[in-house]
């Protein structure tokens, strides 16, 4: 990692701000989950936030996003809307979907967060069409689709990769590679050694990152978007990262048999939030300024949690609303 940022100060600070927001929201979830007010299975992003933050910021407001069920960081990075986020996790009417989504299906259509699916890999083909429509209606706008290393094992990924390459669609395939599908390692699931090498045989730009560094990922994203526009090809980004918590739930499960102590120490030694904070300090941002920003975010998140707890529960009138497409 570069000790000092080469990005403009406001960009570097903005990246940290969003990283901190995503991390802090999940720390709050860990704290209040036992209260059982959020009755929804949680797939936590903690540890992996740099992927979503780096890429969503690289989209610079001119991109759509589709996430997997591990969507907290992606949703927060793309929308920064933690009021709706906590409302939805609490199953309340101030959520993104009146509480019908819960943690697994966060979305915000106006902001271009086109959904998150609980079925592994299911969002990937949808990204193709979103990109297809953009290509015709909003040239220059890309679609970033986030999925795990497990999703790559599905046929839907390979069908979509082929379609995107054959049609030259502006899709950025972002593989959040934490080496795990639930508890199963990549090496136990694949009959080939390097995914990027395989994808390179397609008409697709392939980029890799192993740094877990939000600035590196941000730069990679910017570069990918420029190239996609000039070369008219999709891009595939394999970004290595690490999941801090259990597959589903908020416990650290560090002692589970599938975990490796050395791996845990390695990745926690390159924690994306800590890395960016350190970089800001070394670049001369006064700690007081950082702390002030952090405290403001902390306080605002507490407002979101309180608002969620006070918001109405959805009622009978909402049960059937939206099942079919009513004529308006």
């Amino acid at each position, binding site marked *: 990692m570069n000790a000092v940022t080469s990005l403009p100060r406001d960009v570097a600070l903005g990246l940290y701000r969003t990283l901190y927001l995503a991390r802090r929201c999940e720390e709050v979830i860990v704290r209040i989950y036992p209260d059982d007010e959020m009755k929804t299975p949680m797939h936590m992003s903690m540890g992996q936030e740099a992927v979503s933050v780096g890429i969503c910021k690289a989209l610079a407001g001119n991109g759509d996003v589709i996430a997997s069920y591990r969507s907290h960081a992606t949703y927060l990075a793309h929308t920064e809307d933690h009021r709706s986020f906590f409302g939805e996790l609490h*199953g309340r009417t101030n959520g993104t979907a009146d*509480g019908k989504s819960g943690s697994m299906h966060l979305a915000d259509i106006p902001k271009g967060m086109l959904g998150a699916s609980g079925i592994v890999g299911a969002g990937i083909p949808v990204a193709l069409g979103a990109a297809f429509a953009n290509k015709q209606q909003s040239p220059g706008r890309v679609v970033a689709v986030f999925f795990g290393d497990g999703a790559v*094992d599905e046929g839907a990924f390979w069908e979509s990769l082929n379609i995107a390459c054959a049609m030259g669609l502006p899709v950025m395939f972002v593989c959040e590679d934490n080496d795990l599908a639930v508890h199963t390692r990549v090496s136990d699931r694949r009959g080939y050694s390097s995914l990027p090498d395989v994808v390179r045989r397609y008409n697709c730009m392939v980029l890799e990152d192993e740094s877990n560094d939000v600035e590196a990922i941000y730069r990679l994203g910017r570069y990918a978007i420029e190239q996609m526009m000039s070369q008219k090809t999709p891009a595939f980004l394999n970004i290595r990262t690490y999941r801090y918590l259990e597959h589903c739930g908020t416990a650290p499960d560090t002692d589970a048999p599938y975990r490796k102590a050395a791996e845990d120490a390695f990745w926690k030694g390159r924690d994306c939030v800590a890395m960016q904070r350190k970089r800001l300090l070394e670049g001369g941002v006064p700690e007081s300024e950082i702390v002030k920003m952090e405290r403001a975010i902390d306080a605002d998140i507490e407002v979101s949690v309180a608002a969620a707890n006070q918001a109405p529960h959805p009622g009978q009138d909402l049960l059937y609303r939206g099942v079919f497409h009513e004529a308006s």
Partner: protein
Amino acid sequence: MTHQSTATSLSYREALHKAMHDAMAGNPNALLFGQGINDHKGIFGTTTGLADKFGKHRLIEVPLAEEGVTGNCIGAALNGAYPINVHIRSDFVLLAMNQIINLAAKYKYMFGGLFDVPMLVRLVIGRSWGQGAQHSQSLQSLFAHIPGLTVIMPASSGSIVDSYAHAVRKHRGPVISLEHRLMYDLKFEPEHEPVVLGATPFSQRKVSHGSDVTIVSTSIMSLEARRAGEWLASRGISCDIIDLHCVSHIDADVIMKSVARTGKLLVADTSWQPYGVSAEVCRIVAMRDPGVLKAPVVCMGMAAAPCPTAKALEDIYYPNLTTLTDAIATLVRGKKDNGIELPHERSMADVYKKFKGPF
């Protein structure tokens, strides 16, 4: 022909583990495929330790590739294996429908009877605590619609032990079993094992004898029906409860005999009503002898919407002990103001409350 199913005081989960163990021990060609079958959680504790005993060449951890793995099971069955494939949610098997419906279901018939495809697909129905639209579906009718498939919904530990042994040892075709996640922690006392109403463990089961109303139920709704029946028994209403169990092969005589006696029918299924088990049971009665009915049939199931995540909506999405008891009492008494004291929403509510995942 009726007989008691295996008396066991195992929990549903323990029964599943025993069934998996016995399949491996009893048939050297049995194979078990699934995502996460050999991890420390072992499909909610139903496959734990089996790889140590039978080897990873028989308990095979698979990539996320539902269609590929299902086709692989069909091929293995053609060549003499007995494959078992488990999905921790029934929703995930939708990626394998092509292999199940276009291949497995048709292999025997389409090739003039040349092939048998003996295999078992285990699917787990999720419910409660925010499972949401894509982790809660109860897809029995999609499968039961297809000639060539046998679809079971075990509602007790004895049902699991008997039916899985029958599938592995005797049945020569593809069996789709829908297990219910909320039953995993329940213990079934031997006296609660329903009586099997037929020749094989796939036959319908009698949960309780009664004279006022026939209740035909599936899976966890058979448990709710039993609890409602017990509540109503001491309040002057007697329920004849049939656990459908094998929803693809319904013995019409069993249902007609009961409805002829009671004149009233309530169907309680775990899924949506249109085109489902409810519709099928009504079809049977309508085609056989609708004249036995003294009142319109009542059906209960999930609300006709995808499953909402919020608890407030989930609570009204599914029938519960209160709404079921009320519906039975209203049907029997013939009026909404049925005068029967209703149980508090309890019954399964304790189970729901305890259930907080994991997935």
